[in-house]
């Protein structure tokens, strides 16, 4: 007769052993690398006492190799559900102390389960990647074991590569790449909506340095082709660059607070005590009278949003454009803003990619968008026009995403915006709901200087002093036909010229007005195609 208490003790003892992961030595090694263990990361992500683990007891597949004799706790991944700031979240967390977090059949099964549950339950999921790669033994067992392995491959729903696509646009997906992530291991987490990396220990690339050397005879370090800083600054593959695991996880907790749980929901309202109609006097001093002196648009943003809090995404990539989440009147808004402090706020192919992806995310998840615009336009570049980095192709994406969206969209012209830049940042005729301008704004369908060069081409060419003639004609044009800021109002490009000090209040009232409008109808289609 089995004593229930004895049996319980036995189970608990085994559970504690499994909690040790790869053992004390491996845990030490992980700490020496400056990384937290999987369970330490888990404790930081979830609200205390809320995590419920699933599939701790999984038995790794029998392959016939020596690895079968090793104790691979939980098959190198911890999966389960818990709460983050009170909200339900699913998570999978690789355990690097177990066979370097090798991605085995069992691990794939556990991870797939998490993703499928997230999709079914309408709940976001977080993945923490820290894995040396696929567990090769599981791909083909030793001769006598092949039928077992083959069977398992077909029986398991080993599809963490399919799930991110199914979940895309339905539930928010967040990947923390806080360890190695190569080749096939990377395909799944990179498809998430948000990616967080950590200096020094995050590596993501298609080929490992060894493979690169074998094929191309070039020597590279893993930092060079896949380090966190490379991805944060150059490839744009990461949304936040953390210094420590703790920071990466803390940032993730904050990110989640801005998002709805799924695409049928709105983001939770967080009532700050910040009066949504608060006026801000200091804002007038930011944009100086001389239009060529660059200011930092972050200053404008912080004055408009609740408590000045702004969670920036891709802060180190395409810094001439700012994207991120904030709240106005307690509700999440997505901010897209040009930044005159960097390259004068000029647009390029990277800013177009950065903004179009963000606009689409906000549209998918019912987050209204606010555009703050001050840009001299697209940066003309021979290299960009004559390479695969085609400017027009990228500019079209930016405009496309704005036109495709149906969430409330508000544009504020803070400074300059001429011609094609207007299309890249949204106009009324493209479907933007409301557009306002500051008194210091200069908005026109073409840069007046360019207009003068075209209209008075002959006069300028024939003049004794072309430059002076050009300036004379420009002065005439500006005095008679194009008076800023009124020009935009005269031609219905903006709906009102507002007091900058009341920008926050204007945005709040506009979004409030639009907050319960019925869904905008679009012609039936399976999905929009991606512009080139």
């Amino acid at each position, binding site marked *: 007769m089995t004593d229930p208490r004895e049996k319980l003790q036995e189970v608990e003892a085994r559970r504690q052993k499994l909690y040790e992961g790869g053992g004390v030595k491996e845990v030490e090694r992980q700490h020496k690398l400056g990384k937290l263990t999987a369970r330490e990361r888990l404790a930081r992500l979830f609200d205390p006492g809320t995590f419920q683990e699933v599939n701790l007891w999984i038995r790794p597949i029998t392959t016939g190799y020596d690895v079968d004799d090793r104790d691979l706790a939980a098959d190198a991944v911890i999966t389960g559900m818990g709460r983050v700031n009170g909200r339900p979240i699913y998570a999978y967390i690789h355990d690097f102390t177990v066979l370097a977090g090798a991605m085995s059949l069992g691990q794939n099964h556990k991870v797939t389960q998490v993703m499928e549950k997230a999709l079914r339950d309408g709940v976001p999921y977080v993945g923490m990647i820290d894995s040396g790669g696929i567990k090769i033994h599981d791909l083909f067992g030793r001769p006598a074991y092949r039928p077992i392995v083959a069977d398992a491959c077909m029986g398991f729903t080993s599809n963490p590569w399919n799930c991110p696509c199914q979940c895309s646009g339905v539930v928010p997906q967040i990947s923390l790449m806080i360890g190695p992530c190569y080749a096939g291991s990377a395909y799944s987490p990179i498809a998430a909506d948000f990616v967080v990396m950590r200096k020094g220990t995050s590596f993501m690339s298609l080929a490992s340095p060894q493979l690169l050397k074998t094929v191309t005879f070039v020597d590279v370090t893993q930092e060079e082709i896949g380090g966190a800083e490379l991805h944060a600054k150059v490839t744009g593959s990461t949304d936040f660059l953390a210094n420590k695991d703790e920071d990466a996880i803390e940032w993730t907790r904050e990110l989640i607070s801005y998002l709805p749980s799924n695409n049928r929901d709105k983001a939770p309202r967080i009532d700050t005590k910040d009066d949504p109609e608060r006026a801000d006097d200091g804002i007038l001093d930011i944009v100086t009278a001389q*239009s*060529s*002196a*660059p200011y930092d648009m972050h200053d404008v943003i912080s004055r408009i949003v609740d408590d000045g809090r702004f969670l920036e995404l891709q802060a180190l990539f395409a810094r001439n454009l700012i994207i991120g989440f904030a709240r106005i009147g307690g509700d999440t808004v997505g901010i897209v803003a040009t930044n*005159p402090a*960097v*390259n*004068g*706020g*000029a647009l390029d192919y990277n800013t177009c990619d950065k903004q179009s992806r963000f606009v689409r995310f906000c549209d998918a998840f019912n987050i209204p968008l606010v555009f703050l615009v001050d840009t*001299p*336009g697209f*940066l003309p*570049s021979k*290299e960009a026009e004559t390479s695969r980095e085609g400017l027009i192709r990228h500019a079209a994406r930016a405009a496309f995403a704005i036109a495709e969206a149906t969430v409330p969209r508000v544009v504020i012209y803070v400074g300059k915006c001429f011609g094609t830049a207007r299309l890249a940042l949204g106009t009324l005729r493209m479907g933007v709901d409301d557009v306002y301008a500051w008194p210091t704004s200069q908005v026109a369908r073409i840069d007046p200087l360019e207009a003068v060069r075209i209209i008075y081409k002959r006069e300028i060419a024939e003049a004794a002093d072309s430059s002076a003639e050009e300036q004379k004609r420009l002065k005439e044009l500006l005095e008679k036909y194009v008076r800023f800021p009124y020009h935009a109002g005269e031609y219905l490009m903006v709906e009102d010229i507002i007091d900058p000090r009341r920008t926050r209040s204007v945005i709040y009232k506009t979004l409030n007005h639009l907050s319960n409008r019925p869904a905008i109808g679009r012609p039936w289609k399976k999905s929009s195609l991606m512009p080139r």
Partner: protein
Amino acid sequence: MAQEEVTAPIPGVIVSIEVTLGTKVAEGDTICFLESMKMSNPILAPLGGTVTKISAAPGQVIKAGQLIAVIEY
């Protein structure tokens, strides 16, 4: 002693150089002003050190990626 190159992020015309050979700069200090698309863009020191080379002058037309200065640290 390592060297860090300060290059132009965008093409433009140098308006002014704010340092001289031997100036000690901190990260974020302005090295020069580069005018592009009617905007005067400050080009900042990417790290702290000593300016050991200046290869641009006011009025000079600069290409994207062109060397402006070298900082030794």
